[in-house]
């Protein structure tokens, strides 16, 4: 098992957001986590990536058998977790290339691999750029600064392609994208899929799942997963809306 979440509780500023999450993800799987606004989807993504503002009050998370919660954010990334941000952060003065080169080499160092030199690195990222149809010019620009919404999301997928994570968590990467950008993003995710890695898609809309077919769909509501199923669950949600979950959950919870 790649990721195992057991009874995870987390809060921010004293307010409990996650109230007992249980989830198992195996290599080769794509999981979609859906749910209404404020259900805790993004919190789950951020907690897994190691955001310090969230306090885990109860529960356990194992990644490749290791206790994930004791690891610093950078070590989680080095172990193979990647978070595509819902709102990618603008970092003026830091070029995309420099950030990625540093990241790749820090990860390689952690894994005891030799660092890339400038040439090797450039060759490697060139092939990845094609995957998300990213223009060369974006590479030398400051990270996310002045990018359009679509460029920011594509840049996240590009970084994911470069860092080759074991577990990618895409936090509403599909929100706010036009259909062309959505196809590019989905295409990138599908191309990177392998029997060795896994993806968690956090999404609000069923639309993305027309392009990326999940193995499992989970519905998160009020900090708990209240329903799990196959890809047909997403269609049901699309049809009936989240209200039917809310009615259901009264019974379930």
């Amino acid at each position, binding site marked *: 098992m790649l990721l195992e979440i057991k009874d995870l509780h987390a809060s921010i500023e004293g307010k409990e957001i996650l109230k007992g999450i249980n989830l198992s993800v195996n290599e080769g799987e794509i999981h979609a986590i859906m749910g209404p606004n404020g259900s805790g989807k993004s919190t789950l993504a951020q907690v897994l990536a190691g955001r310090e503002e969230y306090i885990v009050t109860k529960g356990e998370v194992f990644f490749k058998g290791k206790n994930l919660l004791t690891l610093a954010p950078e070590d989680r*990334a080095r172990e193979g977790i*990647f978070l595509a941000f819902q709102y990618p952060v603008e970092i003026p003065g830091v070029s995309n290339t420099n950030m990625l080169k540093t990241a790749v080499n820090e990860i390689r160092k952690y894994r005891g691999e030799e660092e890339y030199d400038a040439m090797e690195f450039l060759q490697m990222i060139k092939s990845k750029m094609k995957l998300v149809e990213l223009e060369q010019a974006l590479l030398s620009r400051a990270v996310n600064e002045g990018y359009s919404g679509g460029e920011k999301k594509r840049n996240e997928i590009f970084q994911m392609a470069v860092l080759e994570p074991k577990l990618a968590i895409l936090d509403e990467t599909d929100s706010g994208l036009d259909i062309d950008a959505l196809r590019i993003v989905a295409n990138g995710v599908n191309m990177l899929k392998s029997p060795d890695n896994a993806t968690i898609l956090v999404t609000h809309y069923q639309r993305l799942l027309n392009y990326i077919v999940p193995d499992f769909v989970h519905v998160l509501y009020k900090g708990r997963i209240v329903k799990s199923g196959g890809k047909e669950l997403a269609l049901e949600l699309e049809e009936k809306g989240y209200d039917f979950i809310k009615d259901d959950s009264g019974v379930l919870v």
Partner: protein
Amino acid sequence: MIQTNEINKWYISLFDEFERNLNGGTKSPVHQLRKKAINDFSQLSFPTNKDEEWRFTNISPLLKYKFNPALNAPFIEKEEVDRFRFNGMKCSLMVFVNGFFSEELSEIESIKDKLTIKSISTAIKENNPQIQKHFNKYADSSTQIFTALSTAYIIDGAFIHVPEGIIIEEPIHILFLSSSKDDKILSHPRNLIIAEKNSQVLIIEHYAGLDNSIYFTNAVTEISVGENAVVHHTKIQEESKSSFHIARMETVQERNSCFTSNMISLGGEITRNDFNTRFNGTGGESELNGLFLIDDQQLFDAHTLIDHASPHCNSHELYRGILDGKSRGVFNGKIIVRKDAQKTNAFQENNNIILSNEALVNTKPQLEIFADDVKCSHGATVGQLDNEALFYLKSRGIGEEKSRDILIHAFASDVVRRIKIDKIKDHIENILTEKFNN
């Protein structure tokens, strides 16, 4: 505790001996200026926090010591100089040790046929007409106590006169090295840079400490930028953390001239820079950029004044501070747009990053606008490293220290990239890396 007026008396009492040691130098017209300046000095008192211009800069630590004027330069090896050269950069070099010009350590022969470059003491002795015309004309000895002290005790500094139409492409690196041995040394570097009509020159004024001793540098630089001339000036301060550095740079710009100033400082115990520039003619362009990085108990104060005395001039100012420990930073940026200075374009920004809980910065933009058809903007920010950005970098596998380093470099880079020469940029990047990787 020594009383402030006792320190005044101390610097006055040294003058007689200083005069005796001038050895014939008392006959020059400059000596009359010295005598007037020591008289002015005796009428003035050292500033306190009650003076508006010194509100946040308490200089009493400087007034604890009775500094002695350096009498001669200690011998230093060439390797000591090399430490502070810009690796691989072709340039002319003037080296001063404790304020005294060192011919042996300097390399100015190859450009002597294009311009006048020499120690100012020689120019004074020779009665160079440019001294008569420009010296002490822009920096005011009668009201500024430290400038009065500088003029009273002037011995040496750089004298550079670029004739009309001459373009000097190789930078001129002026390096001031300081070190106190037994006595606590005071030096008064005094520079005069004159760029005549249509000329161009690039100057690096570089202050460096050879060790961690306590010394006091009281520097004054006067710059005259002639019509359509271009002067690029970079000041670098990498001195002893126990040193005191008080500096004034006064620039006068004629019509269509261009002046850029880049200041990079690691501070001392107390550093105060007064950088003032004045547009004497229309169409001038001025850029003032600064970056200071301080920690522990350091105090750094940047006072700038851009005097838009003529219409159709542009000024652009960006100062940034990075403060750690219990350090104190001050930025006071004054822009005056005089009544006739229509179509002025003035932009000013000051941003500061505080890395600790105890560092503090006081920032004060000061715009005085008397014309009605002008564009002026200013802004000031004080903040911490962006936590969102820090988490973003860490989530990509970059360690905490490295992530902080990247963000600090990025913050500094907006100032550093304005320096035109890559070798100098490299030197500064190295300073930054060393500073934050400890």
